[in-house]
């Protein structure tokens, strides 16, 4: 059996097994869920060790005919970028369960099943090499997340769940139309046939006329931009995060948001390069606005979780900016920044969940002086805070630096202004994170050591066990990012090279054709036939 397919569907074994469990037996259900995700992680490690980093193509490919008439197949395979994101997924899922062991008591069995189903969808999204299959996984993942927020969420979970669902669905429907149109376009070419095979489309789609490309690009990009979320499409995020249970937030921030940025690199750039050039200023500006805007709005939040949610808007802005810098540093930075954000924001949500489980409040003003009562917690919180701030030596810096450098030298963006404005996010990140840390952790202890009417106690061994692995990777990536960067390097190189080729081709063509505008028209017509 193909090891990649095994990794994708392995969580289903856990789901099946859970049907056999008595719903009263909470301990066994939790253990089953945790063990399943742990096994998935171990299996995914096999992918890592067997992966050939010198190779830019897709590995562990498996292809099986699915809908023969439409040339749609079950087609999976991974390159360095998908490998890293799949590992992030399989790494975070068990930790999310471990870190929130006692947070859920109501309908625990269903909850665990939903998390496992979600994992299938997430891994599938990163592995799919057929657009139709990608779409199926993309939508399939939406459903468990909707239930996780809607059933196990906070006070206003229904509003948040519906908002999350509608925003995402709106985008993905446009994407579906674009996928079908793309397949149809392939069939209109001489000797062509309908196809959703990504590898085939890589060579077909860039040949589309600019107008058509632009529409397709916008349909895909809108769907991804909502997921990222890119300003001004981000307002579903704070609500979804605040309402979602901790594990949901961890996975939402840690993995789901990456699907948007993953999609931009995987689909938008290589399939529609010329349209991408055209919209680079738009996406670049939105990314920079997101960086600054997200940070400023995060700064004034009164709820810890909402603050972290808005910080995601800011951090993901860096990823989008790096992507549209279209330089090797920019793309490499974007990829590693996806991992970084998954680790540090995932960890921050765990931290927020841990203190919420104790004090049953998340209002910043309800805290102060917690460091005295929970010193171990304070140390972890401090590390994640500085990881999020982008302190050199920790992971966040590597991604932000590469993104900023990549966009600074980018000839596609064409001006230093993007990078210069984005870099101000580095100052603002320190402002909102340190201010929050100070108000929650430092200062005098509250009277009687009571917070939200509860007495706090420091982290348990289990909670520490959930956080330590994240700290290890935060330092690892900060000190020796090569382990991860060289996995994604061939991807970045390839994406950038192809974009450069298209651009050079354009330049050559326009240079040749400028004296004879009529010829441009002719070649465009012949291309559309």
């Amino acid at each position: 059996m193909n090891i990649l397919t095994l990794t994708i569907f392995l969580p289903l074994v856990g789901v099946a097994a859970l049907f056999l469990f008595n719903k009263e037996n909470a301990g066994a259900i939790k253990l089953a869920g945790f063990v399943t995700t742990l096994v998935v992680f171990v299996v995914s490690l096999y992918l890592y060790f067997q992966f050939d980093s010198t190779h830019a193509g897709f590995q562990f490919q498996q292809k099986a005919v699915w809908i023969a008439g439409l040339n749609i197949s079950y087609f999976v395979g991974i390159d360095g970028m998908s490998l890293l994101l799949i590992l992030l997924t399989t790494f975070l899922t068990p930790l999310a369960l471990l870190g929130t062991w006692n947070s859920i008591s109501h309908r625990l069995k269903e909850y665990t099943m939903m998390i496992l189903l979600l994992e299938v969808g997430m891994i599938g999204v990163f592995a799919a090499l057929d657009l139709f299959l990608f779409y199926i996984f993309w939508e399939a993942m939406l459903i468990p997340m909707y239930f996780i927020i809607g059933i196990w969420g906070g006070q206003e979970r229904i509003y948040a769940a519906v908002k999350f669902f509608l925003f995402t669905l709106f985008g993905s429907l446009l994407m579906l139309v674009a996928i079908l149109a793309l397949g149809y376009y392939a069939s209109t070419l001489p000797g062509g046939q309908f196809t959703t095979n990504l590898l085939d489309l890589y060579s077909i789609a860039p040949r589309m006329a600019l107008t058509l490309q632009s529409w397709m690009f916008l349909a895909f990009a809108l769907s991804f931009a909502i997921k990222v979320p890119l300003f001004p499409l981000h307002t579903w995020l704070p609500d979804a995060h605040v309402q979602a249970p901790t594990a949901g937030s961890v996975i939402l921030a840690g993995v789901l948001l990456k699907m948007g940025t993953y999609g931009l690199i995987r689909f938008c750039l290589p399939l529609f390069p010329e349209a991408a050039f055209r919209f680079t200023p738009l996406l670049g500006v939105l990314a920079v606005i997101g960086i600054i805007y997200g940070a400023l709005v995060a700064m004034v939040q009164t709820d810890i979780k909402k603050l972290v949610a808005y910080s995601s808007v800011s951090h993901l802005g860096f990823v989008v900016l790096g992507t549209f810098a279209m330089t090797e540093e920019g793309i490499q930075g974007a990829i590693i920044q996806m991992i970084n954000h998954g680790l540090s924001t995932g960890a921050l949500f765990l931290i927020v969940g841990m203190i919420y489980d104790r004090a049953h409040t998340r209002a910043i003003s309800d805290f102060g002086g917690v460091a005295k009562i929970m010193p171990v917690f304070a140390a972890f919180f401090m590390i994640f805070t500085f990881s999020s701030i982008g302190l050199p030596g920790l992971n966040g810096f590597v991604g932000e630096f590469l993104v900023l450098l990549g966009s600074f030298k980018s000839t596609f963006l064409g001006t230093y202004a993007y990078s210069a404005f984005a870099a101000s996010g580095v100052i603002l990140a320190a402002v909102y994170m340190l201010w929050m840390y100070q108000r929650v952790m430092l200062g005098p202890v509250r009277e009687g050591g009571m917070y939200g009417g509860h007495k706090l106690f420091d982290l348990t061994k289990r909670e520490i066990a959930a956080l330590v692995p994240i700290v290890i990777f935060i330092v690892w990536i900060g000190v020796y990012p090569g382990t991860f960067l060289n996995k994604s390097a061939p991807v970045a190189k390839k994406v950038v090279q192809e974009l450069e080729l298209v651009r050079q081709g354009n330049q050559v063509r326009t240079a040749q054709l400028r004296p004879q505008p009529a010829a441009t028209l002719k070649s465009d017509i012949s291309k559309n036939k």
Partner: protein
Amino acid sequence: MVAYTPLIIVLFPLLGFLFLGLIGSRIKNEKLIGLIGSGTVGLSFLVALGLFFQMTGLHPEERKHVVELFTWISAFTGTASSFSVSVAYQIDQLSILMTLIVTGVGFLIHVYSIGYMHGDPGFWRFFTYMNLFIFAMLNLVLADNFLLMFLGWEGVGLCSYLLIGFWYEKKFTGDAAKKAFIVNRVGDFGFLLGMFLIFVNFQSLNFDAVFGRAAVLNPNSTMVWITLLLFIGATGKSAQIPLYVWLPDAMAGPTPVSALIHAATMVTAGVYMVARCSILFALAPATLEVVAIIGALTAIFAASIGLVQNDIKKVLAYSTISQLGYMFLAMGVAAFTAGIFHLMTHAFFKALLFLGSGAVIHGMHDEQDIQKMGGLKKYLPTTYRTFVIGAIAIAGIPPFAGFFSKDEILWKTFSGEYGSVLLWVVGALGAGLTAFYMFRLVSLTFEGDERFDHHHVHPHEAPKTMTVPLQVLAFLSIVGGFVGIPASLFGGNTIEHWLEPVFAPANDKLRLTSHSVEWTEYLLMFISVGIAVAAIYAARTVYLKRAELAERWKNKYASLYKVLLNKYFVDEVYDKTIVNPTVKISEGFLWKGVDVSVIDGAVNGSAKLVALAAQGIRRIQTGVMQQYATVFVGGIVLIMIWLILK
């Protein structure tokens, strides 16, 4: 030379940090923690000293030496222009000097801290952070590229944050720590952009590569931008106008921290950075001018505030800002060696003064207001003697250390191609103010009437772990200047010769000519010593013999006094113009306006619109068969009419 010596120097404090950080909380024995904490730094110092002596035996050209450890951040794409930077340490005449200062002064302050921090529940935490600081600082000075230097740069900022906020249960320590980190980040923003511009222009961030390529260039506007951006970074870390505001607040940290980080080492990082990039600054004369002006302004501005402060540590803090201003003045007039020389002597006497103030605070049961002291020399004799030595050194009285270094700066400011008489006047005035506020401090603290409450305060001398470091630093404050005795005073100016290869490219570029001894040099020396002596005499007169004078002046120039006491209201202006508006706009306009009202309003509005439309359309679906049939028939009729008319 052992190839990996620099690595060993860096490794000791790192191991100390890891060990204490992981199991320090379980070690109940303060002595053991103190031994590990200071021992690691001491070992680093010894290794660095050994290395230094080895270097002295080598030909100047062979003294430089780089150890590359591993690739740190790289795009790993193998394309020629793609980014790659290593963790690599560079030993040369400048970095070994900085290493000796950092580990040497650092070791003394660690030892002092064993006494000062005795009994603090966070004892282990203190030494953990301090070791981390030494590690970060060594990375800063030993880095062979801009990015690793930046790691050290931000790393020391982190330690500064952690140590300012060390007593985190007090509200103001948290505020001060946060302010320090954020203001530094503003500077780091400049540093970052400077690095990007360097990379775009030189395709590398490696010192050798960048400086080598720069050496063949002519002055140009890109270099002005690069150096200005780097200098913004320096104004943050080294507390210069306009980013100096964090340093006075940073005094909220334990006093050894103020001595080590906020006086002797970290705050000089900006000076070191400019010195390290001297060739880049040499290609940007416009920036040099800016650096000199900012330095001179900061020197006199901070000194004027220091005149009236009553918190013993605040006086020293403004003094530090002022002295850093002198170092930048030196850099700006292209007297690189003089700036580094002053950096070194300042490390000795300012660490001494801070540790002395710590001994006073320790002996006075945490009292920091000098108006509530007086006459302490009787109770703290060793502290008093060493403190006075520090004060004489900073005042610039020969033959103490500060005299040689400060005079070298003033002389180069006056005579150098990039200096000016005006800058010299500012510098000399600042020197007078320095002497005045220092002896005001000495007089009010150690001499005159005892103004403290004898029932509650029983001043006592500090223990040996604290006084011995004071004595060593006092010794260094006396003799430290002898390495830089100028030719005019028949000295060899050892430090200038030692650093010569480091600054040679910049000096060549600036076509600096060495001056022969002139009578003006003696005259200026005489003037500046005269100003210092006069200022000391004035301070002693005002604060010891005729105390009513101080009161009278205070009333006569009440508004000026108020402005100085309130530090020119700069903090208030920053709050009103930057901090508060940002928060207000973010909350009122961006969050509640754009996010909630506009975007969500539009989303919810369109949802409502759909709901409304659905309400309307729902009426059609009545479930009444007759209605359906009527519509059905009507439809058919309409279609038929259309078909016929067509």
